[in-house]
């Protein structure tokens, strides 16, 4: 078990980031920080920019203005080596993003073959160790298309952590999973954070998981963001924030809102 850092040490930092797609502003001067060794869950409605935030951290897209700092490297600076930054990051994509044409084993072995001098036996050992760690002992010969949704997500998680990253980005890791698979992924993410000290930034819609998992929640709202411990956000006096955490279906309130709008 790793010691979790007691003080707030930003591992990833957004500084006045502006982002727009086709004239539609997604982030307007977004500033926030993600503490080292902690789990931050990013919440927000559809189109609020949750996945965009992860893609900015990975340098897959560039902001129109502002800085994104990852482990001390400014990924918006054209002189920054993205390969160096990405060697510190693992990313779990929403649908796994494993290569369809390669077996599960080859998918996991790919980053090791590309970036390490390990021999075949060492690579095979590392792949099997990661598959065991996510509870997938007997699927290494299968193609990704032959796995269930939960197994695919776990295989993708194994690939994301195989190079021992400092930061793990997870895009909707719970979406489309049955309750048992969801709980399994949740436990795995918690274990990865606790045992390896990896900073987790998780995009999710799942309020119950967020409350169990997160040390910090970042809620993306139209034109602003709110950050804090999830329990504090849930009991916030800000109605927009509290509403987001309220999972009860209040039909009368919805009717009142619609009447007021008309």
């Amino acid at each position, binding site marked *: 078990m790793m010691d979790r850092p007691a003080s707030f040490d930003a591992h990833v930092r957004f500084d006045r980031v502006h982002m727009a797609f086709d004239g539609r502003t997604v982030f307007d001067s977004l500033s926030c920080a993600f503490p080292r060794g902690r789990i931050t869950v990013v919440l927000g409605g559809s189109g609020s920019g949750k996945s965009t935030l992860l893609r900015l951290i*990975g340098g897959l897209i560039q902001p129109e203005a502002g800085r994104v700092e990852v482990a001390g490297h400014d990924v918006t600076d054209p002189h920054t080596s993205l390969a160096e930054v*990405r060697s510190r*990051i693992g990313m779990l994509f*929403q649908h796994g993003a494993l290569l369809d044409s390669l077996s599960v084993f080859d998918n996991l072995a790919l980053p090791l073959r*590309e970036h390490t001098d390990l021999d075949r036996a060492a690579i095979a050992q590392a792949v099997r160790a990661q598959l065991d760690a996510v509870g997938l002992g007997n699927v290494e010969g299968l193609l990704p298309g032959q796995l269930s949704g939960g197994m695919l997500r776990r295989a993708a998680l194994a690939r994301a952590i195989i190079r021992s990253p400092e930061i793990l980005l997870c895009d909707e890791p719970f979406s489309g999973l049955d309750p048992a698979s969801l709980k399994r992924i949740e436990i795995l993410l918690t274990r990865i954070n606790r045992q390896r000290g990896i900073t987790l930034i998780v995009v999710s819609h799942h309020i119950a998981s967020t409350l169990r998992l997160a040390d910090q929640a970042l809620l993306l709202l139209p034109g602003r963001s709110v950050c804090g411990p999830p329990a504090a956000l849930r009991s916030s006096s800000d109605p927009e924030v509290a509403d987001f955490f309220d999972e009860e279906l209040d039909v009368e309130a919805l009717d009142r809102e619609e009447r007021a709008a008309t």
Partner: protein
Amino acid sequence: MTPVALVRELGFRAIRVVAELGSMLLFTLSFLRAAVVPPLRPQRFVDEIYNLGVLSLVIVGVSGFAVGMVLGLQGYNTLVRFGAEGSLGAVVGLSLVRELGPVLTALLVTGRAGSATAAEISSMVTSEQLDGLRMMSVDPMDIVVAPKAIAMIFVMPILTSLFVLAGLLGAYFIGVGLMGLDAGVFLSSLKSSIRFADDIGGCYLKALIFGFLAGLIATFRGYHATPTAAGVSAATTSTVVVTSVAVLIGDYFLTALWGFQI
């Protein structure tokens, strides 16, 4: 539409065409770098030879045989009116080697393998597989695009040879087998009319250039597809349309430059 709107629309379209040409040029340069700079990926190349070449053998062979039979039938019936049926081998051979072989093979391979290539790469874009590679600091140009495009260049002359041979066999079957032309006359007419440097050289030059065009357009369209189901469909359709037009126009210029100056 007002004249101002018309000019604006034309301007937008012109800018889009120029932007696309620029994007294609950058893509081509990236491909050429990936084709010659290590890491080269022989196993991926061999896999693509199978996907693009071996799986196209039947359609190319059968089509070549059918085209040869039609040429044999039409050619014999036309030549016999002038008492020149002994030239059937020359007519069929020159038609197949100079024009029909490379052009029809390119169109067939585009329809089968080019569209499959564009569909596969655009599906990888949609399912974030290419972003997954980028996050592992593996260039998709190296591991996905270059093996497919190089394999297309490699298989096109081989498939063209198969088409021409199958076509000659079809014409021989009709001319000698059905119409009763003397086999020696057919073969000697064929042999005396085809010159190695002009005809065979031109045939392979065309096949190589058409392979380059087909491979580049299919991978480019797939790589730049919009990540939606409609985007996959548009990439596949435009690959077939653009490659077919490029092959037919390219054939004219190659014939003009190569065939009539030597």
